């Protein structure tokens, strides 16, 4: 008897560490979903949900065993229903296999839906045991999510993986976009701020099906609704303010020559401080960055201290300007995309309690100071540029 209990106990103990699906599913009976797109049907409460499914025949990278190479690497199935889950189940009428969501890497939200609000989309993601919260999110800019998913991209098996890997790479080394996953979006929406979501658009849409996709800008949301876009330097300012800057390239003027010098930012950290000035919240964004001289198309002497100090000042000014642009853009749309609320809640919980309700309006009016410290550490593998006479 005691032995039976001991055995049962061991068996049950195992379940604690081994939670998961127990059904056995053969791989060839699964339709692997890599991307999900959600659009709103105009003038209706229904969603159009698109699933991008990898076609294992087309995606086969190994030796093709008599498979027709002409097959598309991925297929998009679409269903219309009132909830995402019912649309998902409805799709089984069209797909010959069981949909498998654990590898969904991308969620694309149609621009029309984003304008109406994205808040209600994510409950299903949190509730489902199959979907992952580390899925990257992008907003289809100027188009529908379905058409983004239907684009065939070169170099990868599916454009969902293409977009998510692009998001990861470009937000790390070019920093004009952010790679937000669902869990951080939910955190923002549940807190008080707005998530910063990158946009993706179809370039060159005439030449389908081999048209291409491009990440473009960062969405500004106001109360969960798409209010506008930040692009270029403004978008980079937003990345800086969000402390997500890993590396980028800043062009600086060099004497007479506009944008004559490129500085590669190699390290950057941002700290936000919240204060209370006359009962109203105010913020200081402090940036400390390091860069190296990566390209000089004009005469500059990396050996001279004055020149380098001047360059550092230029870099700091440029950074400050970009962050200010981003803050102004966000304040204009009453969209706290920079997590400022979180810092305020942390340091002034009582004040936050009071103003929580009208935070977007207060944010629009509060004072944000930007302080930048910039250092240029290296000048590359060369001294003066070769077009300059050596003296």
């Amino acid at each position, binding site marked *: 008897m005691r032995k039976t209990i001991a055995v049962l106990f061991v068996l049950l103990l195992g379940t604690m560490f081994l939670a*998961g699906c127990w*059904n056995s599913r053969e*791989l060839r009976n699964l339709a*692997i979903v890599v991307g999900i797109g959600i659009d709103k049907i105009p003038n209706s409460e229904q969603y159009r949900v698109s699933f991008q499914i*990898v076609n294992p025949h087309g*995606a086969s990278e*190994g030796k093709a*065993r008599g498979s027709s190479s002409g097959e598309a690497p991925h297929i998009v199935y679409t269903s219309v229903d009132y909830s995402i889950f019912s649309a998902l189940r409805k799709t089984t009428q069209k797909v010959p296999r069981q949909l498998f969501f654990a*590898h969904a890497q991308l969620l694309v939200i149609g621009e029309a839906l984003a304008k109406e609000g994205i808040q209600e989309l994510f409950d299903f993601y949190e509730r489902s045991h*199959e979907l992952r919260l580390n899925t990257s999110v992008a907003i289809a800019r100027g188009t529908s999510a379905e058409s983004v998913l239907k684009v065939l991209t070169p170099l990868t098996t599916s454009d969902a993986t293409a977009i998510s890997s692009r998001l990861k790479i470009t937000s790390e080394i070019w920093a004009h976009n952010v790679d937000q996953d669902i869990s951080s979006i939910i955190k923002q929406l549940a807190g008080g701020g707005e998530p910063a979501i990158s946009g993706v658009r179809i370039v060159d849409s005439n030449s389908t099906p081999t048209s291409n996709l491009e990440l473009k800008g960062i969405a500004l949301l106001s109360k969960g609704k798409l209010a506008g876009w930040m692009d270029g330097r403004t978008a980079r300012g937003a990345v800086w303010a969000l402390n997500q800057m890993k590396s980028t390239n800043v062009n600086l003027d060099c004497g007479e020559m506009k944008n004559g010098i490129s500085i590669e930012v190699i390290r950057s950290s941002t700290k936000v401080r919240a204060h209370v000035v006359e009962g109203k919240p105010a913020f200081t964004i402090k940036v400390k960055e390091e860069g190296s001289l990566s390209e000089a198309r004009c005469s500059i002497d990396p050996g001279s201290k004055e020149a380098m100090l001047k360059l550092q000042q230029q870099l700091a000014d440029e950074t400050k300007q970009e962050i200010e642009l981003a803050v102004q853009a966000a304040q204009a749309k009453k969209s706290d995309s920079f997590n400022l609320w979180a810092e305020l809640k942390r340091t002034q919980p009582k004040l936050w309690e009071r103003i929580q309700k009208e935070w977007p309006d207060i944010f629009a009016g509060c004072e944000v100071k930007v302080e930048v410290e910039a250092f240029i550490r290296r000048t590359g593998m060369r001294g003066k540029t070769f077009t300059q006479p050596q003296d």
Partner: protein
Amino acid sequence: MFFNNSNRSRSTLDEHKGDTQAAQAPKQIAASLESNIAYIVQMLGDSPDIVIRRFEIGADKRQVAAIYTDGITDKQTVSQFILQSLMSDDSFDPAPGQSLLDYVLARTLAISEICAKSDWDGILLALLSGDTIIFIEGCTDALCGDTKGGEQRAVTEPSTQVVVRGPKEAFTESIGTNVALVRRKIKSPNIRLEAYKIGSITQTNVAIMYLEGKADPSCVKTIRDRIHRLSVETLEGSEHLEELLSDQRKTAFPTIMNTERPDMVTRNLLDGRITIFIDGTPFTLIAPFTFFKGLISAEDYYQRPESAFAVQALRYAALIIALFGPSIYIAAITFHQEMIPTPLLLSLASQRESVPFPAFLEAFLMEVTFEVIREAGIRMPRAIGQAVSIVGALVLGQAAVEAGIISSAMVIVVALTGISSFANPSYNLATTIRIIRFTMMVAAAIFGFYGIAIFSIFLIGHMCGLQSLGIPYMSIRYPYVPEEERYTLYGLRLGAGGTHAQGQAAPQSSEAPGKTTDGSDP
């Protein structure tokens, strides 16, 4: 030889013959030469390989017969030191009161090992072991002279436990040679050798050897008691004895180790283990044996400790692969697709598109195929063996993938598992692991990783319950000598730093004096 007439030897001949011939069988030999010869001829069924040489000795022409078994005696010794010395000496001059037998024993026979016997059991056993029996008319004792010999395999290189650097000798089928090979390496007076005869029919010579002062007396006692309790008719070899002496019968794991290398025996004796020699097999048994010892190869002692440690780590990895490889593949691909990285999953999915079998069946088919090729390869003549492995690898592997019956990932998994199981230095442990692997695959196919985890828990529980001569099977280090631990790296000697506290047993091994001070688990 020490196996000959030792009072320690355990004769069970009585029990064997007891029922059939007890009625007419005399216990002692008679004084009449003719009746003795007639008795031997009758007992051994007039066997043609029993040679009976009659002759006369001394001035009074006393009738004498020398009897030996052809083939297992050294004929030259018989003719030179028995027949010649007895027949050439005519001036027999026994002292007053000295019997002729005593005189012959003391003065005539130039045989190093000889004794007088009067019981038939002992005489027959000696005759069938290769001794020459000398009957003298009128004497109620017979002389048994050691003339064992005949054709025997020479000491050769080990064929199953090969090392790159280290001694190149292996045990032979002769127990005497084997004991001598070990004696040559340890010249310590503390070596203890105990001889037994096991099997009422085969009367197989068995000897246990240990180092007094190092070996655990309780282990020695255990093994002695178990040998005494044995009552078998035959002993077929070391595997049989291993099974008979094991602590547990209901386990797939070997709890006694075997080796054909004298240096391994030496090392284990010095570590306090007990060696069992069995006549007729080059494989000696070593006990107590712990699981982790099974992953140590003789080679480890002939390499630098650092590299030996690295290789050992590799062997542990190979053990894990050999045990879990196909099960993890089955579990991941049929239950836990979400844990496979996306690019790998896509690649696997495209490979498995055309495979008509479930993953478990696919894995099972390939594993069985591999085992068949392995099994066939063992007994195949060397020239054909090559061809079979090529056909097996190419035709079954490549063609099955090309035909879309098996996915290429499965071939990789099976090949890796197969190779890994051969990285295990102890062959019988590797076989056990292979058997368990199939059970593990079934567990994985039914319950996924949950099944693997549960089965592993039971497996480890079972292994922890095992014992070898009363020593827990899963002991990390046996025997554990704390003060020596700092000279070792995971059980391997570091430099020549160790000085042994128990100096009594320090042998003067010419081969590697430093090594003998290492008392930790090899």
